[in-house]
């Protein structure tokens, strides 16, 4: 049943609580909201493993909001130095870690939460690609999702500056300097974002304001829009068939089950406990995540005079950072730097066009042909390779290989920069040629009803 159905108002059973609820429900759509989005929202009964990640993203979002509020109580966005020479912002993070009771726990939850947010969101997006969840009539859900992803990247980028460590500072310095590559207005845009000619105290203060206030508001609004749009058209499922085609006499889809309690308690709750086991295992036993969740260099205070020898963004940005670095030629007399910026943003924005690029008759991978399966597997490899190579220097070679002089195919085959270019090319080729290969792929017949048990 769609969200816009009208539900009868609550009638009191004569008890005090019943009367109160009737009074409330007459003035606020309480029971109808509950029914439309939970108890009488019918979701396909054949959800599998891949359908856990949306609810996990909400759980991580709540963790980030709550821990973030407590961090703001103690954190000071101030780049001035203490008498011992440490920036106050850097010191206040360690003050939280050492002196605030339970502060280390709150801070590790927030820093680990950032990485977990991207893990579950990447898997959530990949689910959409597996089962064609972006296809008509769910294009808008997908577009809201891409906007959420953009907000998430902005919020993570700005939040990473706040501890004011070496990686915070130089990561921001490098990424913001790319905006200056934009012709004519580039320098002015960079200065406007930084509030100074280099990353400085003014940058820290505005990033703090955007990180704790502006972007979270936008994010929250988009999450509501994402869920409202989903409940308007109903969920897709691993078979990629519409359950609204077959309804019983009461108008309830035959293959649907109430979202609450079957999915909330019966499906998502245990799955989220599993996620929390991983989450807390990291927090209590592996909070640095091997240098990927908290970069080691970020335990050094920001020093505008010393550039770190090896600069890499946090792991969740490295794929797009690789796309930026893949552009080393000045095509059409336009600076390679600009092509890099274009390719980085295009790498995210191209996702928004997926609903129109995909022309396969079947939505779900279960009924799609071999071309899709092979190309999608390589797409996953390309994303993993770009993620990996983004953490390495530009001179990186696989197996610790040292390039030899003269012509040697291994010099190219094992070169990190070659693979960065190759897999970036593949990433874009996958999307841009999709209208062609998705149409000619040999799909299996799609069943009328979902497969269950």
């Amino acid at each position: 049943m769609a969200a816009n159905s009208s539900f009868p108002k609550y009638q009191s059973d004569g008890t005090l609580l019943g009367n109160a609820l009737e009074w409330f429900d007459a003035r606020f759509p309480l029971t109808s909201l509950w029914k439309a989005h939970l108890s009488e929202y019918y979701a396909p009964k054949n959800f599998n493993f891949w359908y856990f990640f949306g609810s996990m993203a909400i759980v991580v979002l709540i963790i980030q909001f709550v821990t973030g509020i407590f961090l703001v109580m103690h954190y000071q966005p101030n780049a001035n130095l203490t008498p011992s020479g440490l920036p106050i912002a850097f010191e206040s993070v360690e003050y939280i870690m050492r002196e605030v009771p339970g502060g280390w726990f709150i801070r590790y939850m927030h820093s680990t939460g950032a990485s977990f947010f991207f893990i579950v969101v990447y898997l959530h997006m990949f689910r959409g690609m597996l089962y064609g969840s972006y296809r008509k009539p769910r294009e808008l859900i997908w577009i809201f999702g891409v906007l959420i992803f953009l907000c998430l990247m902005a919020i993570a980028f700005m939040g990473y500056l706040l501890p004011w460590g070496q990686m915070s500072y130089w990561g921001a310095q490098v990424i913001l300097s790319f905006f200056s590559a934009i012709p004519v207005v580039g320098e002015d845009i960079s200065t406007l974002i930084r509030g100074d000619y280099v990353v400085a105290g003014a940058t820290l203060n505005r990033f703090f304001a955007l990180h704790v206030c502006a972007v979270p508001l936008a994010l929250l609004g988009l999450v509501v829009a994402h869920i409202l749009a989903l409940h308007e058209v109903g969920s897709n499922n691993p078979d990629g068939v519409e359950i609204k085609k077959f309804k019983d006499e009461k108008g309830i889809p035959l293959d649907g089950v109430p979202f609450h309690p079957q999915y909330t308690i019966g499906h998502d709750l245990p799955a989220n406990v599993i996620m929390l086991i991983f989450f807390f295992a990291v927090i209590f036993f592996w909070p640095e995540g091997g240098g990927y969740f908290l970069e080691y260099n970020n335990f050094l205070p920001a020093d505008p005079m010393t550039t770190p020898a090896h600069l890499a963004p946090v792991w969740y940005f490295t794929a797009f950072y690789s796309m930026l670095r893949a552009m080393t030629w000045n095509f059409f007399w336009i600076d390679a730097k600009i092509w890099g910026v274009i390719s980085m943003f295009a790498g995210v924005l191209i996702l928004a066009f997926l609903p129109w690029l995909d022309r396969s008759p079947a939505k779900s991978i279960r009924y799609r042909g071999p071309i899709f399966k092979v190309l999608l597997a390589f797409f996953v490899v390309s994303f993993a390779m770009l993620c990996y190579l983004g953490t390495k220097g530009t001179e990186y070679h696989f197996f610790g290989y040292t390039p030899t002089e003269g012509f040697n195919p291994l010099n190219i085959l094992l070169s990190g920069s070659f693979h960065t270019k190759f897999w970036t090319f593949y990433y874009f080729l996958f999307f841009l040629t999709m209208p062609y290969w998705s149409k000619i792929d040999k799909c299996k017949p799609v069943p009328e009803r979902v497969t269950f048990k």
Partner: protein
Amino acid sequence: MKTHAIKFLKYLAAAVLFAPALAMASTAMHLDKAPVSTDQQKLQHGAKLFVNYCLNCHSASLMRYNQLQKIGFDKETIEKDLIFTGGNAGSMMTIGMTPDDGKAWFGTAPPDLSLMARAKASEFGSGADYLYTYLRSFYRDKNRPTGWNNKVFANVGMPHALWDLQGEQAARETVDEHGAKTVELVAPTVPGNMSAQDFDEAVADIVSFLVWMGEPVAESRKFIGIFVLIFLVGYYVLTHKLGKTYWKNIH
């Protein structure tokens, strides 16, 4: 129904796991494995060496002296034996030398050491390994203004603070045909107050203390973590069983 997803996951895992396997670390910096200890005796020994040898030029300004109670010192000992700079057990472990002085005297201000053991971790080893190797790799070099150089951190601004304990190490420099310089340490020609083995143990204790100071909560964090995970596993069993009951009658 679920086998489809699992099968695909297996393909993915094979494809994704292949990528890191391809990639082994390149040019290695050799670091000795630091024998890091959480033993209170060793941490206390490390703390004493730290306040005597390090806390004159380096601050540990994120640490409060009374935190040292967590490694078994009592308040009187802290105030009587460990604080040389004035102040009481509630003070931070700061120093009299300002960063500007440090810059003028050493070329670069000696960094704050509160987090150094965490900051120095890299693909070559833990931060403790780095510090353990670094502190044992000073050698005499008359070309440096301080008279000291370091194998791990070439042309470092810091002189060998522990030289009276270790003695004076020398180094043999060899230059290969490509002009690449390798430095090989030679056992101390001028002996120190400690035997080589005692010195290694003393450095290990300092490093253990630096590791502890990097995150004083680390041990209790792991201790609490065990109970949290036990609770969550039990909670999962319950929620899993509860969840199943909601699907019993759905076919």
